[in-house]
């Protein structure tokens, strides 16, 4: 089986999983009686429906090839940054810095991936972006809250562009004996991180009692985290055959992804709340905004990338 065929089968497997989830949703909906349980099931069903569209978009981009995949992630960065900066207060003096972020930094970062220029990809935002963005804001001669405003833009750019771009950057890794199969590695990362989110949600709803961080993220529980995290690690280990890892290594990698994803969810939830919002946006029905779906990925992707790069190339 060549990598594209493998990918097609894997996407078929995910579709099967969604069929099962949709059926369970229907059965639950016909059984619940009271209003609050019905609201939970309705939200669950809205989430499953949104998953169908997200999987369809990812599948289309993956099967269309490398450039389509990179372009899709550029768009995701665009929407994520838009949500971030919509909530983060800036002033008129930041207009040029924000324009630079949207119309220069996003395209350049993804073109660097498309042209496989790893050296510049890895430092473009932390070095050049870091220094240029506040320079543009300073030229607007407005010093009120300057540090706070610059920090918000830096943060948005790091999370929404730099961290998310590490997903398609997995295509750049030159792993011995794994040539041509890198899209599978991307699928692996997304699968583990999203299964971890979904299973933590499911375990939390079923067995959740002890809240981990009630102020930051009221829905996160110890039971959900342990149950969901362990299951996602096992799923990662069971998927070793699409990765360059042995089953044990794959379990370790999946654990890293789960832990980083958890931190991502927590940190971005704290950021969101410090900005006074419950959801990042309303683009994905049942989930909130793009950032609500990408929060754990944005933390897991860079670490997974560098761990793989260090140990396997």
């Amino acid at each position, binding site marked *: 089986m060549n990598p594209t065929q493998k990918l097609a089968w894997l996407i078929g497997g995910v579709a099967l999983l969604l069929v099962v989830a949709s059926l369970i949703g229907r059965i639950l909906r016909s059984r619940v009686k009271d209003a609050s349980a019905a609201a939970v099931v309705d939200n669950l069903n809205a989430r499953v429906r949104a998953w169908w569209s997200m999987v369809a978009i990812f599948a289309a981009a993956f099967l269309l090839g490398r450039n389509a995949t990179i372009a899709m992630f550029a768009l995701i960065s*665009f929407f994520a940054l*838009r*949500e971030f*900066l*919509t909530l983060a207060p*800036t*002033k*008129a003096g930041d*207009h040029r810095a*924000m*324009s630079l972020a*949207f119309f220069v930094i996003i395209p350049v970062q993804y073109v660097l991936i498309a042209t496989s220029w790893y050296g510049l990809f890895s430092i473009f935002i932390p070095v050049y972006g870091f220094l240029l963005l506040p320079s543009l804001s300073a030229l607007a001669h407005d010093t009120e809250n300057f540090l706070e405003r610059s920090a918000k833009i830096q943060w948005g750019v790091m999370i929404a562009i730099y961290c998310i771009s590490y997903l398609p950057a997995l295509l750049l890794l030159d792993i011995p004996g794994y040539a041509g199969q890198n899209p599978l590695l991307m699928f692996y990362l997304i699968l583990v991180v999203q299964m971890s989110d979904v299973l933590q949600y499911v375990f939390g709803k079923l067995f959740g009692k002890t809240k981990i961080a009630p102020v930051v993220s009221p829905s996160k529980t110890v039971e959900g985290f342990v149950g969901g995290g362990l299951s996602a690690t096992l799923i990662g280990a069971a998927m070793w055959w699409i990765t360059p890892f042995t089953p044990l290594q794959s379990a370790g990698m999946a654990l890293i992804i789960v832990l980083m994803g958890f931190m991502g969810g927590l940190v971005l939830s704290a950021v969101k709340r410090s900005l006074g919002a419950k959801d990042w*946006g*309303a683009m994905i029905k049942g989930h909130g905004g793009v950032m609500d779906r990408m929060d754990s990925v944005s933390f897991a992707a860079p670490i997974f990338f560098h761990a793989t790069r260090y140990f396997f190339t």
Partner: protein
Amino acid sequence: MWLSYLLIGSVRALLGATPRWLGSDPGPAQRIYFANHTSHIDTIALWSALPPDLRAKTRPVAAADYWGSSALKRYIAVNGLNAVLIDRKRADPDADPLAPLYGALEHGQSLIIFPEGTRQAQRLPGPFKSGLYHLAEHFPDVELIPVYLDNLHRSLPKGTFFPVPLICTVRFGAPLPRIAGEDKSAFLERARNVVIGLAQ
């Protein structure tokens, strides 16, 4: 008109411009929408937040000294936005600058106006000019719908030329009630406060 679709499409793609109907519904009644004014995209954002059937009979009011100042701007205003141009500078001191608006309202059309008269740099509207009062006096049956345009002052502030993509929402409030015998400044202040109320 292809230009309308192009303008609406690009505003939607960049800014979302999603409507929130808080207190009124997108119904068929004849209306004057009055909104805060912070950017050149305000008109298109409000216009594209309306459903297509309402949009077809709703005309934005635009300043002739700006939108009529070049052939391209005039083409966009007249053909793209179906705007009513008014003479803000009062070139002819005897003519009533509101006359074109009365004409449009007599034809059963709805209007979009920005009663501050000019763009503001901050998020809350400044004092309203008297045009809204005269329109309300002449057409007591037309609904006055307050609108708050959120975030557009950040997306394309005065003095900049290209919008930064931030999500903008268009909030429509409940129709402004008429109070018999209310004087001009009280009416204008009340109208302004309703728009400010939508900003919270």
